[in-house]
């Protein structure tokens, strides 16, 4: 079972994006959407449900992530999420 997570974050430098992506991958997440500009990044990922709680604190721990907000999208069921995310990136 996967859970969709959405984060808005501020970065000290854009070059730290790979670190963010590598961390998501290590935790078993699949990034489905990423937009980033001017030290801000918005990220949507699919996380294994039993590990979903690990993403926010681990991302926050990165020194280059100076703020992190988890956005909760109401009314989205896990089954819908991949298609929705896919449409958004298309």
């Amino acid at each position: 079972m996967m859970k969709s997570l959405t984060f808005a974050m501020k970065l000290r430098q854009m070059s730290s994006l790979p670190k963010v992506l590598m961390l998501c991958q290590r935790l078993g997440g699949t990034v489905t959407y990423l937009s980033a500009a001017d030290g801000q990044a918005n990220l949507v990922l699919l996380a294994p449900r039993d590990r979903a709680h690990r993403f926010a604190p681990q991302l926050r721990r990165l020194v280059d992530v100076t703020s992190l907000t988890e956005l909760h999208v109401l009314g989205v069921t896990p089954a819908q999420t991949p298609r929705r995310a896919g449409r958004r990136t298309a």
Partner: protein
Amino acid sequence: MLKRTGSKVVIDALADAGVTTVFGYPGGAIMPFYDALLDSPLEHILVRHEQSATHAADGYARASGRMGVCIATSGPGATNLVTGICTAAMDSTPLLCITGQVPTALIGTDAFQEADVPGLVTAISKHYYQVRDVDDLPEIIAEAIFLTTTGRPGPVVVDIPKDVQIATTTRRCEPIDHVDGYVARPVCDEAKVRLAHELLKSAEKPVCIVGGGCKLSGATEKFREWCDITQMPVITTLNGIGCADPEYKGWLGMPGMHGHRRSNRAITECDLIVAMGIRFDDRVTGKLAMFAPEARIIHIDIDECELSKLVKVDAALHSDMGAALEMWLPLFTSDPVPDFAEWRDEAMAIGTGLNPAPAPADGKVAPTTLLDEVMQLIGGDAIVTTDVGQHQMWAAQRVRASHPTKFVTSGGAGTMGFGLPSAMGAQFACKDQRVLAIAGDGGFQMTMSELATIRRCNLPLKILVMDNKFLGMVRQWQEMFFDNRYSGVDLSDNPDFAALARVFGLTAFTLNEADRMGETLAAWWNCDGPALLHAICHLEENVFPMVPAGAGLADMVESA
């Protein structure tokens, strides 16, 4: 305005931060820095391999509580640091690594000895910098020192191209005490401490598990005060050894895979765990579903990531441990908790499960008997470092460290080769203390070239090589779980380690027969200067108790 080179900026910042000793190995891309070192107050120790520089700096930090510093050149110098950086990260050591880099104009051209250091250390460091402009360096180095030593400490890498080391700047930087979005010392709400207190008040069989976070927070004294008040049973993880006073009536020992019987039993039977500065490592918990099945859990940790990471907790205190205890201790006066002494004694009475090894029929030395004798001889105030393997577990089961700085071991990473160089670092940090390095014959051979450094610096540390002619821990697993099929573990043609040490200029002893143990140990431990003892041990002794991988703590195997 005073102009300083990049190299001088770094050296001044280190000296101002109280660093006295740095460990390193030079090369082309770090030569300007090495030139500047000549005119600096820093003592530079030339190791014989960069990995040893990281472990020495790590040992220096763990034994002293101060930041350790290591230096390497670009390319292969930097890549040789990787194992040590990972080791420091896993055990949260404040380690600052300075690497030389090819000149800025050549970065990205596959220049001679260029390696992508940021790319290499991204996943294993707390943070890293590559300095492109000397004007940025004062602030970067100040920030690097701040980051490595505060919060949950960890390795920070500063990669400095050669031209930046040479270039000059007039910029200065005061020590930094703030980085945007970074909390250097989290302190939890008092309400959380009250919740923990209420949980403790309602417990009948509580157990405390304390880990490396206690030492890193400088909370050992407060923790011992807390133990004296609560009188509850206390378990120390591998990196928490020494946090509890070894004379404390309720010190159960170590938990987990090779933990003491009474520790694992207490975890299985308790109704509350107070976890302080621990990570719930899989080697500690065994099968998670079977871990502390009856217990509610209070967890204090400086790193939010650790809270409910693996084990769901009932009270999560995101806090520096010392700060949390400072709030907690007064509550015991105003609102006392039950008397846990009876449960404590019951838990202690289960025994350690460390059965005396039968004397080997061949008259050889039983490694557990040897370590019992060694621990007796050296007492609790000597600093003991270990390598990784069976000897590490036997030592951890037997050491009676008087303080957590007295037991130095690679816990999280389990890095073979750590024992000897970390002892070297510990001896530099604590010049007037006794230091003992315990290594297996496998791990010793990974970094034994440091015998040359030890001799040159005439470090009075003592080295014990426990030679069982096997990669013992792997052999034990092959014996127990792979049907005795020994694969790639044979070290039967080991060199004569005593002769080898003599070639390096050390005093050396050989212990071959059990009945000469006492006199040989005394001669070795009491001689002047660096000395190595080559103990030729019984070949196939196993570490017990043991919780097989994937099993629960209740499924502990006590002997073969």
